[in-house]
């Protein structure tokens, strides 16, 4: 009898293990109760609706310190979300580029692509972040000699680009597309994201400059290069895992190199790389939390740094943080992972 197929329930062992787990958890709980008595503040959720009283330096939506704390958490979540999304897009582009380059020896740049992957995969993310933030972006001009030529403004705090009315036009365009999708069937999520983007772009259109803080730039660069190396490895492995016989069959059909890649090899490789890519995307969302180390106001920093410091509600904030990250991860898994998909 195979062990997976055994259906019998062993009540005694079930209850025994349940009792064991309950014992451990209650032991931890009572320890916590005793230890936390000394400095416990009463745990209340009311602080979420009272005003935040702190400032968030980077925000895509309008924010002032008088706004409630839950709104500050929302702002931080939007920061995390937009950072993650931008990294996803650029890392995918870079990753596919380097992956394809490093998969085939016929490309002259193979050595470069593979050493790129080697270097960025084998060094810690935190080290790379500090390298970019304290090393490279530290070379940007100090406050007294800001570079400004009417179109770009570069200083040690931020990078501004003149955009004119571009964001107003984009916002208007996205609004129309969003409303159009609203009337289509099964496109509600799509329409919602277009409307959100429209709203965010509308906020940019107050100023004629698009400003990115140096923290954002450093995080964006770090995460892009770091994740791209992982994606490149995935792409390379999937491309190489396509059997040679399929390659031969495509040549026998008379396809040229470009068509062979586009029509035969790439679709097969894409299927096997999909779950791993989604795992990487989830990892990006989790990795944005290192923004805490350089003071970028993303979710982890605001929720477990600033808010705990100002209110002292440690338990609630920490559990809220864990719940948010957990639900995002589980939601992504639920959304993208199709089980038993044949490859």
């Amino acid at each position, binding site marked *: 009898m195979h062990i997976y197929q055994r259906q019998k329930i062993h009540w005694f062992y079930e209850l025994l293990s349940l009792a064991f787990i309950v014992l451990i958890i209650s032991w931890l709980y009572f320890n916590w109760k005793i230890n936390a008595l000394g400095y416990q503040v009463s745990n209340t959720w009311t602080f979420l609706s009272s005003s935040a009283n702190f400032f968030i330096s980077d925000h895509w939506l309008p924010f002032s310190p008088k706004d409630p704390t839950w709104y500050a958490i929302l702002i931080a979540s939007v920061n995390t979300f937009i950072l993650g999304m931008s990294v996803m897009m650029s890392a995918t582009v870079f990753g596919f580029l380097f992956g394809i380059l490093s998969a085939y020896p016929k490309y002259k740049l193979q050595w470069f692509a593979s050493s790129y992957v080697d270097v960025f995969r084998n060094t*810690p993310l935190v080290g790379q972040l500090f390298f970019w933030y304290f090393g490279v972006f530290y070379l940007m001009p100090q406050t007294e000699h800001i570079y400004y030529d009417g179109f770009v403004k570069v200083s040690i705090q931020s990078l501004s680009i003149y955009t004119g009315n571009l964001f107003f036009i984009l916002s208007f365009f996205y609004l129309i597309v969003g409303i159009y999708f609203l009337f289509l069937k099964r496109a509600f999520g799509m329409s919602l994201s277009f409307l959100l983007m429209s709203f965010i772009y509308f906020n940019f259109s107050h100023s004629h400059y698009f400003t990115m803080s140096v923290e954002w730039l450093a995080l964006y660069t770090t995460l892009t290069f770091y994740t791209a190396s992982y994606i490149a490895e995935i792409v390379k492995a999937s491309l190489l895992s396509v059997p040679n016989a399929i390659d031969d069959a495509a040549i026998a059909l008379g396809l040229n190199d470009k068509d062979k890649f586009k029509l035969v090899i790439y679709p097969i490789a894409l299927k096997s790389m999909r779950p791993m890519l989604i795992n990487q995307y989830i990892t990006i969302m989790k990795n944005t939390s290192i923004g805490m180390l350089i003071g970028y106001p993303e979710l982890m920093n605001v929720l477990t740094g600033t808010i705990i410091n100002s209110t002292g509600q440690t338990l609630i904030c920490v559990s809220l943080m864990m719940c948010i990250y957990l639900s995002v991860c589980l939601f992504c898994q639920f959304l993208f992972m199709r089980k038993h998909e044949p490859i």
Partner: protein
Amino acid sequence: MSQYKLNSTFIIKVVVAVTVLFIIAPDFEVLRRFVFGFGQFITPSIFVLFFAILQYTLLKNNKFMALLVWVLIFAFILLNIKDGWPTGLMVNVVLTLMCLPMTFILALLFAVLRFQSTLLVLKIFATVIIESVRGVPLIGLMIFILSVGADMVPAYWMMPKIITLWMIYSLFAGVYLAEVFRGGFQSIPKAYFDGAYALGMSPLKTYVYVLVPKVVIDTIPAAFNVYIGLFKETSLVLLFGYFDLMNIALNYLDFPEHYDESIKIYMMVLILFWIVATIMHEYGHYLFKTFSKYEAKKT
């Protein structure tokens, strides 16, 4: 016996990296401080010696000796913590090496409990732990342990910091390794169960003597990816105020006269991490080649 051949590109890579390291280092003293911290040469040397003995016992397949050496290593670490050792790169290396066996045990436990167990309660428990650790970034887990988890053990235990870190990292890497082992267990054909049961082995014996050895050997490359990830994540111990390589570099750059060296210093840090990670990678390759002899030829 072993089919492993030392890779020439590996040697060239490491030699080039070390050369670059010596070129960009401001002076030898800085480099020494980055690697060994504020401690002496002698302690890490004894530590490395222990691991050489461990490697020898593993190759001779002497499990009792290997266990004894692990116990000695732990005793050695516990005795030496109070002297402010380890610091520098040794923190990352020592922490990783400490975590290896615990990660391994936890991962096996979680993998078996979650994916092979017939006890529903344990299955749910393992699933909850695995999913909640996987779903939260390591920084979040650390903040949880620092702020809430630290109160969950009796106050008189006075746990040394490195033991707390050891537990966090073992749990974190163990959960990821469990997923790797899950794949290994799933790829085992049903024939293994039949074959073992027909010889009169109980399910427990089948797991201990047949399935686990096979899964462990099969998943060496994937497991070493997890171990390298663990090594890289140890750079986050600076949240605990521990003087690891990264924190020593930050400390060094605090002085105004070193401000303009920042790119160099961070490159040094990255190269040091890179060298150790590459050596780990090659070691995993070596282990796989040595222990998976049976994969050599297919009929």
